[in-house]
């Protein structure tokens, strides 16, 4: 496939040149033409069962399913000709024969391809007068619920479980108009990547129990982000409603997660909506910690840090920018972090994609910036050093070690227990409330953006640390996270040449990142 022959054809009057072996549907995409389709998905083997992508190819005896027809030299394809529109109208009418049209109570409403294409090219009324077939909704296990009445039998879910998850759990049961998606005897959708069938389902037949009846698709604000729940760094779209993260869905990136994300990462978003937050900067007075202005808190912190060795206990959830600024306040001290671990769960159908053992976003970045991964968080804390706790809660750590510290500064989005000993508390935004970059386990630097508003007087961590550096008399004029990143790129050789502009929303590997094999595309007809 390296020196593939280029084929020239015409689609809807536009000339298109694509490598040999490309399907008409994919070739049309490159020309900006969307051919309606249900069963085709770029991450799954081709089935050609929905008949929705029928197009007219000149000199061909009949309409061709564009998802399963490869391009040929000099082909002339008509996507919106009368003949193909008529065929697709017929397909839509047939799909809607037994569809309950319960859009008002269907979670998919608003992001449903059946709804979209019916509005786009379907009939305005039904000619079907007979009663519709009815099957009760079924719990498929895991996070998935199946509503057979809405199903259009595209078999995307069946193919995902069989060819991508390698855990054949679903099949098409029964025949003819009684056909529905069934589970194999004794099987459940408990595979750690099974909830991807909810995203793959073009209609409202497979629904997430977690998201069920929570919001309508059109009420959600969508933000490009990175899943912070393990070191894989799957690209996600964070969806918020009324300043609450309500779900995360995978965002395609062929270099990281293809089209998928695991269930654990997907469902682990509630900590971002934490209500019990540190909302105001606090400074220790005679009667304990009292709320203070940002200026006072920053200058109190700068006074506490100046001239001291600083030991930083950081969270691997912090961005590269914040961790870099933390290294700038160390003044000869060190930094440590710890990471919670769990079972590794690979997705066999995609190369180098797994739910990783280390469950934090920026483990690799923290190590790259000189933080030491250790269970004994406070081991490096010297007598009389200033301890800076950034985003870490010190839960389960022997608190007696904290007493070695000359002073304790807490920079966190929630108040950790160690705040009892702190002389200053600086509240920061959490992962979903600020912008930055994280580095995944293959050394790929990826941007995430702000999905929701931070509460109270909370500020983004890079801004707080930048102000702190300024107050300590160091060169720090940062107004944007991109400026912090530019400083990082110029001072750390591993980040050389990277910038927010060059990273884009798919990320780039570090200079010394281990070379990774390209993702194996799924073979046509596999």
């Amino acid at each position: 496939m390296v020196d593939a022959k280029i084929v020239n054809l015409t689609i809807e009057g536009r000339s298109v040149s694509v490598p040999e072996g490309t399907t008409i549907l994919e070739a049309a995409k490159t020309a900006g033409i969307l051919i309606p389709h249900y069963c085709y998905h770029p991450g799954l083997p081709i089935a050609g069962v929905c008949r929705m992508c029928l197009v007219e190819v000149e000199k061909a005896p009949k309409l061709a399913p564009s998802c399963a027809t490869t391009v040929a030299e000099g082909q002339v394809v008509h996507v919106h000709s009368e003949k193909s529109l008529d065929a697709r109208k017929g397909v839509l009418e047939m799909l809607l024969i037994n569809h309950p049209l319960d859009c008002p109570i269907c979670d998919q409403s608003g992001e449903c391809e059946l709804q979209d294409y019916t509005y786009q090219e379907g009939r305005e009324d039904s000619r079907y007068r007979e009663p519709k077939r009815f099957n009760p909704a079924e719990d498929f296990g895991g996070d998935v619920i199946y509503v057979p009445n809405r199903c259009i039998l595209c078999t995307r879910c069946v193919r995902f479980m069989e060819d991508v998850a390698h855990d054949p759990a679903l099949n098409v049961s029964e025949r003819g108009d009684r056909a529905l998606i069934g589970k194999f005897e004794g099987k459940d959708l408990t595979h750690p990547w099974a909830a991807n069938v909810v995203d793959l389902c073009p209609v409202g037949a497979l629904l997430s129990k977690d998201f069920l009846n929570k919001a309508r698709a059109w009420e959600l604000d969508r933000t490009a982000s990175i899943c912070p729940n393990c070191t894989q760094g799957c690209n996600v779209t964070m969806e918020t409603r009324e300043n609450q993260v309500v779900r995360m869905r995978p965002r395609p990136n062929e270099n990281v997660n293809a089209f998928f994300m695991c269930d654990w990462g997907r469902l682990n978003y509630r900590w971002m909506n934490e209500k019990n937050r540190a909302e105001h900067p606090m400074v220790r007075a005679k009667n304990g910690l009292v709320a203070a202005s940002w200026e006072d808190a920053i200058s109190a912190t700068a006074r506490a840090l100046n001239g001291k060795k600083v030991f930083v206990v950081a969270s691997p959830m912090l961005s590269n920018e914040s961790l870099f600024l933390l290294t700038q306040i160390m003044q000869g001290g060190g930094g440590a972090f710890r990471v919670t671990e769990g079972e590794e769960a690979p997705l066999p159908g995609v190369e180098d994609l797994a739910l990783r053992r280390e469950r934090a976003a920026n483990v690799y970045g923290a190590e790259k910036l000189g933080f030491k991964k250790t269970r004994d968080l406070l081991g490096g804390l010297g007598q009389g050093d200033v301890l800076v706790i950034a985003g870490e809660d010190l839960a389960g750590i022997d608190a007696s070690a904290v007493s070695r510290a000359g002073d304790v500064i807490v920079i966190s989005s929630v108040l950790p227990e160690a705040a009892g000993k702190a002389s200053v508390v600086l509240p920061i935004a959490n992962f979903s409330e600020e912008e930055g970059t994280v580095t995944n386990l293959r050394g790929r630097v990826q941007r995430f953006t702000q999905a929701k508003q931070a509460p109270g007087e909370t500020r983004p961590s890079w801004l707080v640390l930048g102000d702190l550096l300024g107050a300590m008399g160091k060169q720090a004029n940062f107004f944007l996270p991109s400026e912090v990143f530019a400083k990082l790129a110029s001072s750390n050789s591993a980040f050389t040449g990277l910038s927010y502009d060059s990273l884009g929303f798919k990320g780039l590997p570090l200079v010394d990142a281990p070379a990774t094999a390209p993702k194996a595309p799924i073979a046509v007809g596999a």
Partner: protein
Amino acid sequence: MAIKVKVVERPTDDVSYVRATLKGMALTVKHLFDVQGRVTTQYPEEKSPISPRWRGTHRMLTTETGKARCVACGLCPTVCPANCIKLVPGEDEEGNRYPLVFEIDEFRCIFCGFCQEVCPEEAIHVGRHYENSEYSREGFVYDLQRLMDQTHPVCEMWDPEDPKGE
């Protein structure tokens, strides 16, 4: 140069105010003795008839079991141009889609009737009712129970077959 004024000779009948004043006074006196019947409506004892398509206070219709017909589909808060409907979707005891919170701010509402028009379940309606009073502004935020408790007749939708409602 002296300004020349052209004086137009008009018949006295046309320029005299006396006749016009008397004519006006005659009309006033005529109404004083109620020759044509009273025109003042004695509101509130007496009320003017309102159109069957009057769009007033909202009302939520209920099912035979006394539950709101609403399925929390979210179309009315979406279509509402005044943004006066607050809806938090959820589930009822049987697991069916049902509003956890459904509030209409009657002050903010502009009574366009789009909510009734868009409702796929014929649940929310604007009604043929306009007399509301409260001691506080908060009282005009009607919750689901209050909307269900309304008993006034609801607005009839415009019928293209009978555009004037005759």
